[in-house]
C-alpha cells in the first residue's frame, strides 16, 4: 500500500491568490464605491473574511485531512471538511483514468487525476507531478493485469 498526500505548494498558491484577489477587490471598491461607505466596507469585509476562512482555515484543513491510499487491489481516499468521507474503489472496477495538468501550474501541485468506473468516479486533487505519475502508472499496471486475468 502506498500513501499520498496533497502538495502543500498548491495550498500556498491558492491562499496567496485569494489574498491577492481580496487586495485587488479592496482597491477597486475603494475607488468605485467611495460614496457608498457602508456597502464598500461590507464588501471589503466579505472579501477578506472569505479569504481568511478559506485560505487560513478550510483549505489547510482539507489539505491536511486528504490522504490517498493506493494498493494493488484498491484505491481509498480519506477526505472532507465538514463531512468526513472515506471513499473506496476496487481496482477491478476502474474503466479508465483522466489526468489533468497545465504546463506551469503542474509545478505548484495543480495535477488532478479522475478515476472513472462504471457508475462512479474518484477525483484525486492537487497532486505533485511525481505522485500523479506514480498513481497513474500503478493504476495502468493494475488495469492491464486485471484485463489479462
Amino acid at each position: 500500500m502506498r500513501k499520498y498526500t496533497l502538495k502543500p505548494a498548491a495550498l500556498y498558491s491558492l491562499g496567496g491568490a485569494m489574498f491577492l484577489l481580496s487586495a485587488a477587490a479592496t482597491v477597486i471598491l475603494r475607488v468605485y464605491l467611495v460614496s457608498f461607505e457602508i456597502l464598500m466596507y461590507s464588501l471589503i469585509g466579505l472579501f477578506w473574511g472569505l479569504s481568511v476562512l478559506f485560505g487560513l482555515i478550510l483549505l489547510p484543513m482539507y489539505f491536511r485531512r486528504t490522504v490517498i491510499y493506493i494498493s494493488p487491489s484498491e484505491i481509498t481516499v480519506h477526505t472532507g471538511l465538514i463531512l468526513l468521507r472515506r471513499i473506496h474503489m476496487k481496482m477491478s472496477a476502474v474503466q479508465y483514468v483522466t489526468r489533468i495538468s497545465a504546463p506551469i501550474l503542474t509545478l505548484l501541485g495543480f495535477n488532478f487525476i479522475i478515476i472513472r468506473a462504471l457508475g462512479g468516479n474518484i477525483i484525486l486533487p492537487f497532486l505533485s507531478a511525481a505522485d500523479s505519475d506514480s498513481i497513474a502508472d500503478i493504476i495502468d499496471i493494475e488495469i492491464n493485469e486485471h484485463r489479462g486475468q
Partner: protein
Amino acid sequence: MERVGRQHPVRLLSYTTRYFWLLIIPLIRSLYSLTLEIDAFRAWIKGAWLDLLVLAAIICFAWIRWLSVWFSFDSEKIVLRRGVYLNVEDTVYYSQITTLSIKQSLIYRLLGASKVYIATNAGNFNSADVTVTMTRADADRFYEAVKGSRRKSLNYSVSPNKLRLLLFSLLFSSTLSGVLIIIALLLETGEVFDREIEARIFLDTLTEAVNRVAQYLPPIISLITIVLAGGWALSFITNLTGFWGFILTKCSDCLYVKSGILTKSRHVILRSKINYFDLKQSFASKVFNLSSLHVNCSGYGSTGRDEMTVILPITTRKEINGTLKEVFPEYPRPKVELKSDPRSYGGFYFWPIVFAILPAAGFIAIYYLLPSWYVVAYPAVAITVIPAIWLAMCKTLSMFITGLGFKDGYLTMRYSRLFTFHTVVAPKDRITKIVIRQSPFQRMGGSCSAAVYTSSDVKTKHYIYGLRLDKALAFFEKNGFDLYYSEKPR
C-alpha cells in the same frame, strides 16, 4: 441469412422539425375553409407560397435523412449505416447486447411499425446505443435472430394474476406518479408543438373541469380534487395497461419480458449483465407485504418516459420469493446483519422536519404580510404538510429495516429513499465505489452513513443511513472493501 432494409416510413415524421407542425396545421385549416373555386385556390397559393416552400424543404430534408439510413442483420450481428455525406456505420454483435427492447405503440401497431432499442455496456449513458424504427416483420425477424443467438433452455415462466394486478393497480397507483406522467407528457408534447398552444390546451381543459366541479365544491378544493384524482387515474391506467399481459420467461442465459396492451413491449435481457435486483415497496405495500421486483441492466427501463425496470409487477411476497429462487438461483436471500444504530434514529427525521417547517414558515409569513391570502394559504399549507407527515411515517419504518448484509459474494442493502423502500442485492464485482460519510453530529455519536455505488449507465447510489462507524468499517473490511479504518482521518 442476411436481411437488409430501410427504416419504416413513419420515421420520416420524427425527422421533421417541430416547425413542420406549426406550418401544416394552419395551412390545412385555411385550405379546408376554402370555397370550391379556382380563384379562391389561387389566392390561397398566393398567400401561402412561402409556407409551402418551407414545408417542402422540411419534407425533402427528412426524406433524404430517411433514405440515408440502412440496417442489415444476420445470425450474429446488426449493422446500422447512416449519413448523407459522412457515412457512419455501427456494428453490434448479439453477444454484447445487454438489453434488446422492441416497442409498439398503438399508432405504430396500426401502421405496422416497431421501434427497436439495442443497448450494450458501452456507449450512451441512460439510453440505447442504437435505435431503429423497423417494419413489424423486420423487427420480428431481428428479435428471432437475437433469440436464436441465446441458449435455448426454457426454465421458468411467470405471469401475474390479472385480477390481482387490477386490484393492486387500484390500491397502489399514486397521484404523484400520475402528476409526473402529466408533466413528462406536456414536456414531450412541447418538443413538437408550440409551448403556448400546449399551455393553453392544458389550462383550458383544467379550467373547464374546475368550473364543472366548482358547482358542488369551493374552487380551491375542486382544483386540488381534480389534480389528485386526475393524477391517480392516469397512474392507474398507466400501471394497468403497461403490465397487462406481463410475462417473464427465464432461460439459462437470458430473461424475456413481454407486456402491455396499448403499447406492446418485448425485452431480451442478458442475465450475466444484470447489475443488481431491487425489491421496491411503498409504505402501503410494505404493510401488506407486497413488492415489485426490478433489475438494473444497461438499456432496460431507459427507452421511454413510462418505461420501468420492473421484471415482476407488484405481487405477494410468496410469489416474489418463488420468482427470485427461480430467476436468480445464485443470489442469496436478502438478509441484513448490520442495522442502523438506535442512537442515530433522530437523524432519520431531518428531512420530514425540513419539509414540515418550510410550508409552516411560508404560512406564518403570509399570515402577517398578506392577510387577505390567508384563505388560500391555509388549505395549501395543510396539503403540503401531509407529504412531510407521510415521509416521517416512512422514515419511522425505515429506522427498523435499514441495514447491510453480505453472503456468498453478494451485498444486500436495505434502505428507503423518500417514500420508497428498497432491498437491493448486488454481486460484489458490481460494487463500484463505497463512501463512508460522517456529519459533525454523526461524529459526536460515532455513527456514519454508507453510500454504495453500483455499476450502472448512470450514477446509482444506495444510501444507508445511521450505521455505527466502527461496525460499518469492520463490516466492509471483513468483506474485502478495506477503507483503512485503522488510519484515522487527521
